[in-house]
């Protein structure tokens, strides 16, 4: 009798172990997810192929662009998070194609595509070795997803086990949200200027 009980117990334990393993096995996406490299605003954060530094950040209810006298206004149901920084390639010319804002709740927000014509905007600029390039990024996020969030930057979102910069920008975040900011074109090394309304 005790032998039968022992076998039944072993069977139950084996089933429980299998169930546990089945539900705790990471998926392909988890196994091949990017390797995070942490950093914060004001310092050079780098991975094998590029380095990036965040200089300033702005928050606004709406953004305006002024290009050759033509004004466009971009509203949002959340807030605009504008990040100014500079990037440089370390080995080979490249363009960064993966930029996200990781909110404190774990939700990720993609880089806004609404400024794809803006000079200096991340996806329009190529990074070259030895030549730091000023870069502008804009995210549309709910206001509660700003504090405690991180800027995520990688060469591409499609390369398994690639490195990803995870930058804490709390040190340069403003305390309040501006009603409106204007992005102007500029002719210097930094190809934009930000004006507070």
């Amino acid at each position, binding site marked *: 009798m005790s032998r039968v009980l022992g076998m039944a117990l072993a069977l139950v334990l084996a089933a429980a172990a299998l169930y546990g393993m089945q539900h705790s096995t990471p998926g392909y996406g988890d196994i091949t997810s990017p390797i995070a490299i942490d950093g914060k605003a004001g310092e050079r954060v780098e991975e094998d192929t590029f380095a990036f530094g965040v200089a300033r950040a702005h928050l606004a209810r709406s953004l305006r662009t002024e290009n050759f006298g033509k004004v466009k206004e971009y509203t949002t149901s959340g807030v605009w998070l504008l990040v100014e920084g500079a990037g440089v390639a370390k080995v080979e010319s490249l363009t960064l194609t993966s930029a996200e804002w990781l909110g404190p709740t774990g939700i990720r927000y993609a880089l806004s595509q609404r400024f794809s014509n803006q000079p200096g905007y991340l996806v329009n600029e190529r990074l070259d070795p030895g030549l730091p390039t000023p870069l502008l990024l804009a995210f549309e996020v709910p206001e509660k997803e700003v504090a405690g969030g991180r800027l995520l930057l990688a060469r591409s979102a499609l390369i398994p086990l690639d490195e990803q910069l995870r930058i804490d920008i709390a040190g340069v975040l403003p305390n309040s949200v501006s009603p409106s900011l204007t992005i102007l074109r500029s002719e210097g*090394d930094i190809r934009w200027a930000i004006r507070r309304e």
Partner: protein
Amino acid sequence: MPSKTVSERRAYWGSMAALGLVLPAAVLAHSWGSLAEWYDRHGREPILVEGGVSPIYAGAAWRLVYLKRLPGPSAKAAVVLAEFEARVGKDTASMAGMCRIRLTDADGRLWAPTFTLEPIARKAYPGIEERPLCGGPAFAEAGPGGKVDMVATFLVPHDAVDLALLIGLAEAEPDTLLLKP
């Protein structure tokens, strides 16, 4: 339980030892293709050519005419103008794709060409903007035996020295050609 005979023990430990050899061999055999592909992409050195020699690459004879350093658009960068030529061989089918051109320096850094020729190069060498892009359409137009003169500009930092032009064509890769002045 009867004790194991000497031959059984020998067979057991022999099998365990064989596992130590067979398992790594199985992993190696399974991943051999990926390893070979990785070596082709990363481990292969480019074909190095110096001093105006015209090597045959992708069915054409290539020559670096010059690399000229010009003032850059900002204080931190210089413009490098590269002029190079290809004399097309008999088989233009082996040159159907577009070239992948890079400028390299002594540290092994690689710069892609600018999307359009830098204004200072166009001003210093009028007419260079008419040159064709390095690739299949230009080679096909030149035809077998024809010569294609090409230019590209690069933005590099002032500390980039010992520059050379790296050319790759899909039909000939993973081999690439490194032309030094």
